[in-house]
């Protein structure tokens, strides 16, 4: 079947040819995907869409009537729509911040075990970064072994989670003005876990009933994510697994191989994926694969754990969030190995229709229909090998008639950590600052976030990126947006051809793509670090920079936390799907207008990528004018 023969329904679901091919295949075989389930879910509950239902106590559930003169305007306890929306929103932030920060904690735990010599196969790969972080924490490095330093660092970082009075060390990387503003507003986080717990306390019935006060606590928790938990995850992962440097790879479902054992790693934490990558190179495993008639073992990524190993090892990436089911439908996946976050429980039933094994690994995350092989860092390599063995042994059950792998796999250049960007610039940020000042680069666009079947898959991402680079906005990206960009060919130096004259010149001179892959979702912390460095170099606050953010296809609670810490750091952000806040005029006004006077940035909602690009470019031009450049 070719694109011309796909039904209108299929064409409306994605712009990615590989996804379209697999969606058509799914329809032909009668397999249901997230898109079908969304269709079956329509219309979705309007109270939920507006954020005006509350189940926080059992006098409820309560829902506020959105109708002008009819129906209840307060819950049984008297909570108004404004209170309910604010409470619900910050509970989403708590969920998102908890997810990122718990990921950070797991990495800190791995560093601790490694330092103690109990990490089953991990080692400290980036000693320079270890020392730099130790210096930040005031840990002595002179004449000490890397294990000794790592032990102190891991303990110091561990303590950030349980701190009561702050500060969280990495928050001090923000420009002084920003930190002073946070302190003035009372949103400088005191401890990572504390802020999340306090959200749950404040939103319990009868505690905080002031929408603005509630949102401020949401901001505080979000900062403890972006400049806390997420940043810890990024930095310590670099110490353990190496700081990414530019590397080439490929993206899209075509990276699956017809004649090899295909292992898809899906989820978020690099602790597992790093070891799977290593175990799959074990000669014993390769020999086993050959014994079963496979030509080798092909490990590929999916979502953010995929981004982690893509950035560090150039492991090909099979797709973003909405492609997880499509990968299984290729019939060529021996095992899809998952840990935590963004893993659809639908994978269990779906993989049951194929020979594919869904292997869950985290004690925190079990799935129906999955084989559970629990992962423990202490025995990381051995467990990874057992998982790989399970996948390899499953190869013989592959049904050749079921195999259907799309051809698409796009070349990409990834691995742009802050350190790598500075290196590409010749060791200092100056060339970038010069390019911004001269106007060759108008500004920086941070485009991130998930997929959401409410938006044509990758359309929001790719069209926005294309429009921005055309207008000389340099892009930094992470997460599922980054994967969309890689698939669309925007992460090649040659993509500079699609950029405006100024950006094109800069990219060609440096040999970099106009869209820079900075990593997984926790690696948005890298974007914060870059923004802080640029702001500090210019002697201004982040909110003064010609920069704008966007999450064109966001869906997760993590994205709500991200969006909040990004605007709390001073970056105007455009959301592609509407957050559940419209039921409250107060909260909506605060987030889209009032926040400007408080934290120097706001949210806008714009599903149309072309209009979103315009909003971002207008904002960038405004900031340029204010800076007098």
């Amino acid at each position, binding site marked *: 079947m070719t694109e011309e023969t796909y039904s209108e329904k299929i064409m409306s679901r994605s712009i990615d040819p590989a996804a379209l091919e697999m969606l058509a295949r799914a329809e032909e075989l009668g397999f249901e995907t997230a898109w079908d389930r969304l269709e079956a879910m329509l*219309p979705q*509950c*309007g*109270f939920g*869409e*507006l954020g005006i239902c509350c189940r926080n106590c059992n006098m409820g559930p309560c*829902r506020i009537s*959105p*109708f*002008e*003169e*009819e129906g209840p305007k307060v819950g049984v306890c008297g909570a108004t729509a404004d209170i309910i929306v604010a409470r619900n929103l910050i509970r989403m932030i708590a969920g998102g911040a908890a997810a990122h920060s718990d990921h950070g904690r797991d990495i800190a735990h791995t560093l601790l075990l490694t330092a103690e010599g109990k990490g089953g196969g991990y080692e400290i790969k980036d000693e320079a970064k270890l020392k730099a972080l130790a210096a930040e924490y005031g840990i002595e490095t002179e004449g000490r072994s890397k294990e000794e330093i790592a032990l102190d660092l891991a303990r110091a970082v561990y303590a950030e989670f349980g701190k009561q009075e702050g500060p969280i060390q990495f928050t001090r990387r923000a420009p002084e003005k920003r930190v002073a503003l946070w302190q003035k507003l009372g949103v400088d986080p005191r401890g990572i876990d504390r802020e999340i717990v306090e959200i749950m306390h404040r939103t319990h019935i009868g505690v905080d009933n002031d929408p603005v006060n509630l949102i401020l606590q949401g901001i505080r928790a979000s900062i403890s994510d972006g400049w806390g938990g997420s940043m810890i995850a990024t930095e310590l992962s670099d110490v353990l697994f190496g700081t990414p440097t530019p590397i080439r790879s490929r993206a899209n479902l075509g990276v699956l191989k017809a004649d090899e054992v295909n292992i898809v790693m899906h989820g978020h934490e690099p602790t597992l994926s790093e070891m799977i990558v290593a175990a799959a190179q074990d000669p014993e495993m390769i020999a086993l694969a050959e014994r079963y008639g496979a030509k080798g073992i092909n490990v590929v990524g999916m979502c953010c754990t995929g981004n982690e190993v893509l950035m560090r090892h150039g492991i090909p990436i099979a797709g973003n969030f909405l492609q997880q089911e499509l990968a299984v439908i290729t019939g060529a996946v021996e095992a899809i190995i998952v840990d935590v976050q963004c893993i659809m429980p639908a994978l269990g039933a779906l993989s049951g229709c194929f020979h594919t094994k869904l292997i869950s690994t985290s004690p925190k995350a079990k799935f129906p229909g999955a084989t559970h092989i629990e992962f423990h860092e202490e025995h990381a390599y051995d467990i990874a090998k057992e998982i790989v063995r399970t996948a390899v042994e499953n190869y013989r059950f592959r049904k050749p008639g079921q195999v259907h792998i799309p051809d698409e796999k796009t070349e990409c250049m990834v691995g742009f950590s802050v350190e790598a960007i500075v290196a590409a610039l010749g060791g200092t940020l100056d060339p970038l600052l010069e390019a911004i000042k001269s106007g060759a680069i108008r500004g920086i666009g941070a485009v991130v976030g998930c997929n959401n079947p409410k938006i044509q898959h990758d359309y929001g991402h790719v069209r926005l990126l294309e429009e921005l680079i055309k207008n000389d906005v340099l892009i930094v990206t992470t997460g599922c947006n980054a994967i969309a960009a890689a698939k669309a060919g925007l992460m090649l130096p040659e993509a500079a051809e699609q950029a405006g004259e100024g950006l094109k010149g800069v990219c060609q001179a440096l040999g970099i793509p106009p869209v820079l892959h900075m990593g997984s979702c926790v690696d948005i912390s890298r974007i914060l670090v870059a923004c802080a460095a640029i702001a500090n170099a210019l002697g201004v606050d982040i909110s003064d920079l010609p920069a704008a953010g966007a999450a064109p296809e966001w869906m997760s609670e993590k994205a709500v936390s991200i969006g909040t810490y990004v605007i709390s750091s001073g970056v105007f952000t455009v959301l592609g799907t*509407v957050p559940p806040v*419209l*039921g409250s005029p107060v909260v909506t006004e605060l987030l889209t207008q009032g926040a400007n006077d408080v934290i120097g940035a706001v949210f806008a*909602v714009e599903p149309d990528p072309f209009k979103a690009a315009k909003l971002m470019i207008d904002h960038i031009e405004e900031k340029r004018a204010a800076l007098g450049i």
Partner: protein
Amino acid sequence: MPVEGPFILVNPERCLGCHTCELACAAAHTEAGTVIGAVLAGERLQPRNHVIQVDSVKISTQCRQCEDAPCVKVCPTGATYRTETYTAVDQRLCIACRLCMMVCPFGAIHMATATVAGRDKRAAFKCDLCVDRPEGPACVEACPTKALSLRYPREVIQQATQVTARQFLEALESQQQLASNP
């Protein structure tokens, strides 16, 4: 022969009281067509149906589309009228005198603010069976438990007679069986 108009039927055993039908009704009567779209555009949301609870039973209520409609009879301005198949309000003519509201035995009419020809005014609101909506009634389509359906009186009668006639035949048969195998 007069044409028999359809009406909305609710099955109380299926209704969960979620109010989805109210939101769908309100959204269907806006320019934007969706709840979020209407709120973003600043359009008023106004349902024509009401989900209520009687003792422990939840049901959606709306206009019965009465053939001999009292609301039409009392309207002094001719705003409330009946076509061959349904009753409706022309909000342009409505003066919000509440007479129709008072005489409706089902409480299916209420007064609220309407925007008519760019001007805000008070007017009567009632179910119009979504006659302008190609997909038919929005509430029926929206109900997640399929508690609502658009029914034609003749069809309802036929269904009922079919069911009872079958029961009758079955009863007869079992009687004969009893007679032959005592």
